[in-house]
């Protein structure tokens, strides 16, 4: 990997220079402590130490929360023209970068999703290092470090950022802005090592996923699901904020008497209608079915490709009922293997 250093005093300059490669979107704050990715006009507004956004940036910009697909005028259908602005996502955490690889696997394998693909191609990703808070468990998922999936990745140093270059686009950027970059010193490497050591020892939540698919196989009738599903509101918050949840609902909206628009919008497997199919059959009729389903979808259905969870902690932070993903899993594991 190629390394460079960005001195702290050039951070804002760096962000402004990035505009050459697209509209810069970065973490910003609203309310007391809620973060969201949005267009960054004033680089001093960037919340570089943010914990996590509501909707993961990597999901939000490739799979829009609400997006028009088609227009119908009487009998005539017309595909909605895609907006293909080039975007630079500045300040993406490793877990979200790793989650995007999971989304790519789904949306870019045949049949490819053209809406996803065109947006995906137009995104430049600048990662940033972070310290875990009370909710993070990415280390247990092996997604706390990004080895690929970004163009540049910034690691905090005492007086700047160590930049890892992860793609040809990343090289192009560093090449173009070489006047504000420096070479990495021994001291910087020492700082990076110390930072990483501290980061790795700061995780408060752990789960052992080595036997997860098997354990879930054995735990289908566990009382743990039942107990938690009594508390679950079925509100879907956990799935909506999840960086790997990717279900959408498609519906038509009338614009006038004879014109309508086909729209897709994030959906959640906690909605009763999510499991409803033609003929009126529902394959997940109870809240228990729906609650358990999420755990199987995250940790079981895809054992070959690994687990559909990156440990970002969003589901736990945003659950109104205070249900913690990892506590549920640990109880299930404890029940099966007593560990």
């Amino acid at each position: 990997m190629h390394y460079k250093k960005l001195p702290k005093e050039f951070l804002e300059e760096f962000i402004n220079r990035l505009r050459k490669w697209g509209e810069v979107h970065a973490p910003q704050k609203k309310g007391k402590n809620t973060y969201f990715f949005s267009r960054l006009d004033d680089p001093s507004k960037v919340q570089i130490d943010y914990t996590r956004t509501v909707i993961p940036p990597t999901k939000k910009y490739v799979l829009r929360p609400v997006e028009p697909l088609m227009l119908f005028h009487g009998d005539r259908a017309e595909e909605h023209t895609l907006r293909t602005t080039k975007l630079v996502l500045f300040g993406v955490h490793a877990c979200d970068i790793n989650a995007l690889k999971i989304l790519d696997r789904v949306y870019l394998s045949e049949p490819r999703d053209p809406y996803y693909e065109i947006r995906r191609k137009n995104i430049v990703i600048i990662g940033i290092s972070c310290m875990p808070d009370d909710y993070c468990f990415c280390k247990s998922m092996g997604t706390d470090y990004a080895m690929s999936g970004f163009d540049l990745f910034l690691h905090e140093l005492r007086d700047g950022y160590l930049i890892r270059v992860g793609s040809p686009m990343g090289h192009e950027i560093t090449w173009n802005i070489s006047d504000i970059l420096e070479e990495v010193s021994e001291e910087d490497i020492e700082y990076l090592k110390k930072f990483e050591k501290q980061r790795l020892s700061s995780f408060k939540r752990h789960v052992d996923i080595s036997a997860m698919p098997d354990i879930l196989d054995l735990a289908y009738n566990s009382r743990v699901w039942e107990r938690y599903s009594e508390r679950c509101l079925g509100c879907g918050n956990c799935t909506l904020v999840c960086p790997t949840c990717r279900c959408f609902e498609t519906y038509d909206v009338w614009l006038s008497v004879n014109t309508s628009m086909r729209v897709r919008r994030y959906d959640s497997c906690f909605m009763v209608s999510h499991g409803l199919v033609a003929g009126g059959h529902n394959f997940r009729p109870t809240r228990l079915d729906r609650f358990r389903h999420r755990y199987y979808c995250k940790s079981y259905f895809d054992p070959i490709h690994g687990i559909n969870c990156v440990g970002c902690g969003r589901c736990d932070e945003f659950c109104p009922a205070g249900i913690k993903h990892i506590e549920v899993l640990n109880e299930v594991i404890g029940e099966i293997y007593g560990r």
Partner: protein
Amino acid sequence: MKLKMAIFELTGCGGCELTFIMLNEKLEDILELYDIAHFKMISSKEDLHKYDVAVVAGSVSTERDLKVLESARKKSRILLALGTCAVHGGPQSLILDEDLEGALAEIYGKKVPKEMKIFAGTPISEYVKVDVEIPGCPPESNDLFQALVDLAHGVVPYKWDYPVCLECKINETECVLVKRGIPCLGPITLGGCNAVCINLGIGCIGCRGPLPEDVNIPSEYEILKSLGISEKTIKRKLRMFSKRVSLNDHEKNLYK
């Protein structure tokens, strides 16, 4: 040929019927599809024959309401309940049947008129078959627009079942419940309002009524209790807009 529509008003504040008028320029679209045969708020002219679509707003709270409702049902092919009063009973359903006499005495003193026959506010579906329900206090005029255009095209309107939280998350609004400890009924309340109250920084009061199928009242109750709200206030909060939230079931579940 245009379809014939009628709008009937039972007990309510009139806001639901107003959403029809508030369709503004979209009203022109609706008038391309429908003739309005009966709507007291805009015209005293009435055609009392058969209707393709009857829109009923308000809850059944008087004998007159019941008569109007039954005749509306008999005369129409499709009956649409508009607004939370019609769908769930509305705030007037807070009074229970057994408290009615006391409530009457409190308002009218000893001179309760004999001819006054009232009930506790009741969702219209408890008396007649309802084909389409559009809750909301007031309902979203676009929901009404979508349903009326759907019906005119022979399409069954969507029956949404997502809570306020869904749109709240799509808006990436700060969760007032989780982040600020403000009571919010969003997780158990039917969405479709674009989480408008939360966008303004206040908690959802449940004006669109509970989710149509699976609604976890005991868990919401526990959450509100953990915020330090009294049992009495929580109960009133939960029952504010809907007679369909049965506190008895809820209590049974709560202490099982």
